[in-house]
């Protein structure tokens, strides 16, 4: 039986936009605007969408690196204790900080240039009760070896490492407190393609060894297909489609996902579908379009799309649950 590790309910993150002499709030960036999502223990959940859709913000909201404006983030422990994280005091978050970690996108800003690897990593370990220096060195050394780097590297400075190495050090950092869930925010996007594949394999291997759960954020759907169990597609702060990975590629329901998938370069000419070109950029999340947020760019948009907001409804494809929010889906809704 699948068990949840996180349940997001109506999560919103709105950043105030200030302007003028007195820094008056003139509007809000609706970076994440009402996300309901369950993440199951042991799965790899992909979170896809063009850049600016709010994927990073959602990932950070889970870890409370940004404070959600509204909504709930519930953590369910292995023995079924549910804790609502967003209402916790800062210091009560500590036990959960251990369990939830993040790997960042940019290998150049993800390591502190003034400290050696050990110097940057030892404070978190100290904070979570590993008092002896020998022990801290052992933990970091072991993890460096687990990501196929040498123990001695812990005494080097970040500028001595290549992008791929830095990214693996970022993984070491995320792993050092034995977390349960790791948010991988575009963890390989900045790397060379050849190194990308290796780091992805490494992530999968570590997942198996350490029973991890991944929230795998990417703007590139070609990476997610073989990696993820399920995929959530995000557009302008909302989830527009959520289903098993296979179904997303084979039984696409939402026009936005269709467009993203058609943009993946395919080697096999028979499989080549007509590429749907999305016009323009993601609209500003300050004033999202009325009706379906996707309608100005949607090739299938009709009149109803301009006025009525579609909600995320549950359908079934291949006998699997399949959520999507579009007016034009002619499958029976299930409850």
């Amino acid at each position, binding site marked *: 039986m699948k068990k949840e590790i996180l349940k997001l309910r109506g999560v919103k993150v709105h950043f105030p936009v200030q302007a003028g002499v007195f820094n008056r709030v003139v509007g809000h960036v609706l970076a994440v605007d009402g996300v309901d999502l369950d993440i199951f223990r042991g799965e790899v959940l992909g979170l896809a969408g063009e850049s600016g859709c709010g994927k990073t913000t959602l990932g950070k909201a889970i870890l409370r690196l940004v404070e959600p404006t509204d909504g709930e983030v519930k953590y369910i422990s292995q023995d079924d204790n549910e804790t609502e994280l967003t209402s916790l005091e800062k210091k009560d978050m500590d036990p959960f900080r251990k369990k939830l970690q993040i790997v960042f996108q940019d290998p150049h800003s993800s*390591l502190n240039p003034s400290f050696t690897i050990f110097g940057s990593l030892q404070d978190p370990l100290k904070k979570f009760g590993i008092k002896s220096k020998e022990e801290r060195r052992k933990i970091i050394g072991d993890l460096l070896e687990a990501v196929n780097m040498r123990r001695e590297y812990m005494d080097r400075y970040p500028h001595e490492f290549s992008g791929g190495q830095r990214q693996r050090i970022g993984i070491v950092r995320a792993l050092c407190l034995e977390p349960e869930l790791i948010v991988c925010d575009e963890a390989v996007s900045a790397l060379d393609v050849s190194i990308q594949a290796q780091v992805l394999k490494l992530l999968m291997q570590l997942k198996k060894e350490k029973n991890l759960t991944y929230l795998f954020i990417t703007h590139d759907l070609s990476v997610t297909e073989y990696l993820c169990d399920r995929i959530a597609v995000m557009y302008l702060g909302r989830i527009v489609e959520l289903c098993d990975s296979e179904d997303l590629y084979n039984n696409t329901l939402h026009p936005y996902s269709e467009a993203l998938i058609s943009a993946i370069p395919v080697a096999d000419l028979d499989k080549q579908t007509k590429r749907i070109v999305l016009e323009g950029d993601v609209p500003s999340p300050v004033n999202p379009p009325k009706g379906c947020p996707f309608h100005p760019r949607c090739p299938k948009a009709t009149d109803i799309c301009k006025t009525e907001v579609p909600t995320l409804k549950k359908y079934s494809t291949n006998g699997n649950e399949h959520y999507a929010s579009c007016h034009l889906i002619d499958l029976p809704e299930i409850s």
Partner: protein
Amino acid sequence: MAKSSLDKKFDQIRKREEEKTFSTKKRSRIVNKFLNNRLAVLGLIIFTIIILASIFAPLLSPYDPMRVDLRSMRQPPSFDHWFGTDSTGRDVFTRVLFGGRVSIFIGLGSAILSAVVGIAVGCYAGYKGGWIDVIALRISEIFMSFPQIILVLLLVSITGQSLFNLMAIFILTGWGGMYRLARARMLSLREEEYVQALRSFGLSTFTICYKHMLPNALSPIMVNITLSTAMFILTEAGLSFLGLGVPLNIPTWGNILNVAQDILILQNYWWMWGPVGIVISVFVLCVNFIGDGLRDSTDPSQQG
């Protein structure tokens, strides 16, 4: 145990990565760059000489900077008195050496202390943001927009002239610049992913901003400390020249220069104010060279 194919691939990557020989430490790269800047090195050498000469003044000169000797008044430079003597027969060279102690102490001390205050406030406010930041910003603006000379007059008339009052005024008017610099650096640093990572571990604000972030904000502040040192030394000289700075009985470069107020001395006894003026200019110039050298060598956009 057989190696997995993944391990093999990584070993290949690792080999390739190690072939690019690891560069030497970052510190020495900065030092190298600084040493390549001739003016900065020259500045550092003269700066060191002047400071050492001031510190070891009693060893370099047989005279007492305060002792009046009426038999040798207003003597021009000679072998006994390298810079001549002043109107009360005191040896000018000795006074320049001893004056350097106080002037450099005031300049460097005020610069460092205003940096400490500015950094302490700026790091925290810049990292935390919110109302603390707004308040700190407004306070710094008030201090920075207040004319220094009026503050000096005010404080001198309230508490009297003293070295520490002068330093207090320098710090009051000087910390704002340092604060803004530190704050601006923190504002950009706090978006860096390593800071986010530290936050994701729930480390305390103090550990994150003073231990992990501050070292990366230091280089522009170091540059500013050198430039402020030069500015404070000049301001001290200017204020003392006007008789508003350090009490006249303490020799400082400004107080030695003070005699040039007298038109008679200005016209007839060049050695009483000429050499000390040159020393001030040279010292300030050297400090500025050092500051420029530091700025260039620590500028990340120019790292080759």
